[in-house]
């Protein structure tokens, strides 16, 4: 029988295991290249051209170009590798982490100063916490997003 993966039911969380690592190998190695200042400069000077030198999937390249870290992680990226992209953009770990929640930078920072995200309702998929899939995205953006969704559904006759 296959090895146990007891970590698949934690909401909003991807454990970087051998399977993710295989999927994300070139994405992560591209990120490693950004540890050299000359590579950071070359990447910023022409992102698409720089990415095209790596045997990454098109999806991975688009996720990098969009700075969509959640998508990067779904495609095998690991946050410590992906942080090289943020560093290249001059972003902090807090800005990067916050960007994955849908919250604005200010909202995320305020959540942290207030003691951080509670584990309540966020331990197992299917509970009611703010990190559960059905509660995404979070923050002010989400209210706008949901309202837009409602309007759209209303327009389409409620489908």
């Amino acid at each position, binding site marked *: 029988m296959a090895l146990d993966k*007891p*970590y698949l039911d*934690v*909401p*909003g*969380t*991807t*454990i*970087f*295991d*051998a399977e993710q*690592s295989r999927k994300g190998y070139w994405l*992560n*190695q591209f*990120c*490693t290249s*950004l*540890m*050299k*200042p000359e590579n950071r400069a070359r990447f910023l000077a022409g992102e698409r051209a720089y990415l095209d030198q790596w045997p990454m999937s098109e999806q991975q390249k688009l996720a990098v170009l969009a700075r969509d*870290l*959640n998508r990067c*992680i779904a495609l095998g990226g*690991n*946050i*410590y*590798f992906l*942080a*090289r992209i*943020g*560093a*290249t953009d001059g972003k*902090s*770990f*807090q800005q*990067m*982490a*916050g960007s*994955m*929640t*849908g919250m604005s930078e200010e909202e*995320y920072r305020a959540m*942290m*100063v207030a*003691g*951080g*995200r*509670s*584990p309540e309702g*966020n*331990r*197992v998929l299917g509970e009611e916490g*703010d*990190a*559960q*899939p059905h*509660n*995404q*995205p*979070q923050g002010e953006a989400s209210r706008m997003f949901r309202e837009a969704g409602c309007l759209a559904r209303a327009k389409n006759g409620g489908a």
Partner: protein
Amino acid sequence: MAKITASVYTSHVPAIGVAIDGGKTAEPYWAPLFAGYEPSKQWIEANRPDVVFLVYNDHATAFNLDLIPTFAIGTGAEFAVADEGWGPRPVPKVVGHPELASHIAQSVIQDDFDLTLVNRMEVDHGLTVPLSLMFGQPEAWPCKVIPFAVNVVQYPVPSGARCFALGQAIRRAVESFDDNLNVQIWGTGGMSHQLQGARAGLINADWDNRFLDRLIADPAGLSKVPHIHYVREAGSEGIELVMWLIARGAMADVAGGPAPTLKHRFYHVPASNTAVGHLILENNV
């Protein structure tokens, strides 16, 4: 004979390094955190180690996906400070202790720990932020440092029990070294934090404080907690806390000696995305 005189435990949040390097330690956001390390600076001034055996994890810096050691010991003479993408931290290079490091490696490999020996690597915030927290901003670090890197990035990471047993083997190794050396062992990383996904920013102060309680009083029991508990309760990056069990395993009481003295305990939320925990335990032998 070399002796492990104390163990120090601390988070190693990169933003703390940024605050120190940028002269922001007195800002309202940071002042309470750095106040918590003032007693530690005084303590270490009075209890200067010859060597710090510094347990940390590399954050995809020295090791990328080409090669991932579970346990890597730095046996080199010195270690440069890495450029993690923002340029290298403006801190002194790290000077190793090749003789003691090789001695420990030889001893624990014969004790069935399958180390990787590393003579050349760059060290990242995981190693340098704890040095800055304890020693401030000196021209040169006031002691030698043996870097000991643990894989907590790609699963499977070593179990708490394996880390705790390794600490015990390190203690035996240090005590069989002929020179008189005052050795401290530091366990770094944690406490609760998650840097990814919709659950980013998770902090579990209750769990963290119970972890500190048990690390002091029941480390053997604590070492049996499976990884999944760390992930669920302390966030995906909270798994770094298994490294504290290496330092704790090296204390005298685990080998039947007297209980250590708690010299300092501190807990603070937040530093960037992370809860900061800190302990100093002194051996009484």
